């Protein structure tokens, strides 16, 4: 049971990441591979505040959001100029640079040592050290973010985003300042990723830079692509699938000396098959 609760918590965290990244990749059509950077910003903000100051978990979430927005604004200003492949390659760069900062700004982040002893949230008299309570908390955050994302996509703002995706030139003709829209959605998405990071840090009680490298961004992107582009439920489905798949494969009974590598093979083959037969993802509404 504990195992299933644990998987459900991980799922909630990655569903938040998937939903938020879908706003950028699916709805606006910008292939961002830097989501783990903002995920890390949230995690590090919470970790540092909870271990070094008296700030509580919920205040640290707010501060994490603020830091993520500030940083995503700086990065987004640069990124808003790019399109397509170049946008993706640019985000590669930012993820690597922010990862290098997590790893090398030792006075603040403790570098390769990581930060242990992060406390679990407390609210009124509810103890979130209990995993079930933590799951409820994570699901509440997921619900909140899902509805904010839904509100955004159904709003006129969201329709402009989709128009940018379909034909940016045309919408510029109508007088829309598209870099402003791209920047705004990028920052909103980053803020949501920071929330997931805060949850992650507090749940594991330990973080180190290795959780926020480029490959993690690729994993989150895979959630969105697999589940479904421009479909919020798709991102949730993708998170469910990619969090559960490796765990199910633990039980398949590959010979122990190749089991772990076989999982990678299966993972790779599934990505290829999805691209071949369902490039919009399981329930997506937009093809890359």
């Amino acid at each position, binding site marked *: 049971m504990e195992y299933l609760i644990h998987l459900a918590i*991980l799922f909630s965290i990655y569903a938040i990441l998937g939903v938020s990244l879908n706003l950028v990749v699916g709805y606006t059509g910008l292939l961002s591979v830097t989501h783990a950077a903002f995920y890390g910003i949230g995690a590090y903000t919470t970790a540092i505040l909870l271990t070094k100051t008296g700030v509580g978990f919920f205040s640290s979430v707010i501060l994490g959001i603020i830091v993520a927005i500030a940083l995503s604004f700086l990065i987004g200003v640069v990124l808003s100029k790019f399109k397509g492949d170049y946008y993706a390659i640019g985000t590669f760069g930012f993820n690597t640079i922010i990862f290098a900062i997590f790893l090398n700004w030792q006075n603040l982040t403790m570098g*390769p040592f990581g930060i242990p002893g992060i406390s679990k949230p407390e609210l009124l008299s509810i103890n979130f050290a209990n995993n079930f309570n933590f799951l409820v908390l994570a699901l509440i955050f997921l619900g909140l973010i899902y509805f904010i994302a839904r509100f955004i996509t159904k709003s006129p703002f969201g329709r402009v985003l989709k128009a940018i995706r379909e034909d940016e030139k045309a919408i510029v003709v109508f007088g829309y300042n598209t870099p402003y829209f791209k920047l705004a959605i990028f920052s909103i998405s980053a803020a949501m990723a920071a929330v997931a990071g805060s949850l992650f840090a507090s749940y594991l*009680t330990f973080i180190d830079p290795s959780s926020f490298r480029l490959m993690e961004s690729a994993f989150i992107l895979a959630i969105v692509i697999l589940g479904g582009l421009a479909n919020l439920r798709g991102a949730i489905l993708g998170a469910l699938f990619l969090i559960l798949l490796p765990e199910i494969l633990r039980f398949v009974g590959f010979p122990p000396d190749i089991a772990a590598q076989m999982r990678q093979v299966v993972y790779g083959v599934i990505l290829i098959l999805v691209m071949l037969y369902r490039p919009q993802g399981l329930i997506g509404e937009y093809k890359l």
Partner: protein
Amino acid sequence: MNKLTKWVIGIIVVIAVVITGYFVSQNSSKVSTEQIKIGVVAPMSGNLAFLGEGIRDAMLLAQQDLGNTQYTYELIFEDDQLDSKITASAVNKLLGVNKVDAIVSFGSGPGNVVAPIAEQNNVVHLGIASDPNVAKGEFNFIHWTPPAEENKVFVEELQRRGIKKLGVFESNQQGAAAVMADLKEKLKETDIEIVTDQVFNVGEKDFRSIISKAKNSGAEIYLLMAFSPEVEVLGKQIKEAGINTPLTSIEAFELSEQVDLFEGEWYVNAASPTGDFTTKFEAKTNENPTLGAANAYDIFNLIVAATEAFKGSTKPTPNQIANELTTIKDFNGVLGNLSVDEDGIVISKAAIRMIKDGKPVDIDN
């Protein structure tokens, strides 16, 4: 999206969840009274899979070498790719599904993830990690020669040889950084100076430019604070740069696949790992023992020793295993004489060794 697709997706989701639930419940084992289950969490895929493979082979070897015991011991290995979230999943799987009695983890990062979970679930956890934080709590132990112990021996040897200028190549990861932080403190009290300190990231294979930077530092010896494979590539590129300054290391040379590179060099290592273990490991795998493999072998035997020491009609509870572990003194491990201190740290000694005729040997001072 049409209705049909919706249905299909819905069914797929339900099936996926049911399958997971089924596997979890099917594989959930009954708590056996005779069998002690040891879950091992280590990287078995990804960049550092060779380390996890070494740990696995060492533990299987220890299991093979086991004589007559009161209880039987089962090993269950789970991959964590050295990724914190997967570490947490692996531990939860071992606890929830396999109902393990003890957990072994590899690396300080994973150790820090496992420790609070082990404490919360009352399960013995032994980490192959240098970070003392991993040993916090009643159920957590670590088996790694403490950096302070290694550095003490290292600094004494530097002084004995009259070395005043030390050059350092340092891998940017937890194990190396822990040793270096302690070493820098220790060197403050001596007249030994670090004349150059070059840091590089794990996975780096091109050291030529940091070697060029260090070349004119006047160092009398270079400390290679890195592990295989970086340490071999580094050693090779130092030689290729035409530098003949002696090289030394803490831990790394002994585990090198290309010991020849370090012929004649002295280094610090956990006290006398018995040649026996190395021979057996090589016979089993055709490879040298990897980083932490000897520790893994010892850990298996420590768990066995603690469990067997408990005399009772049923198998001991984790609480009792933990208690027994803390009383272990002068245990004859492959990493020398081991004792467990009150903080849960398995104390092993460090010694100066050297590579002679392609084999690591002790130096008689």
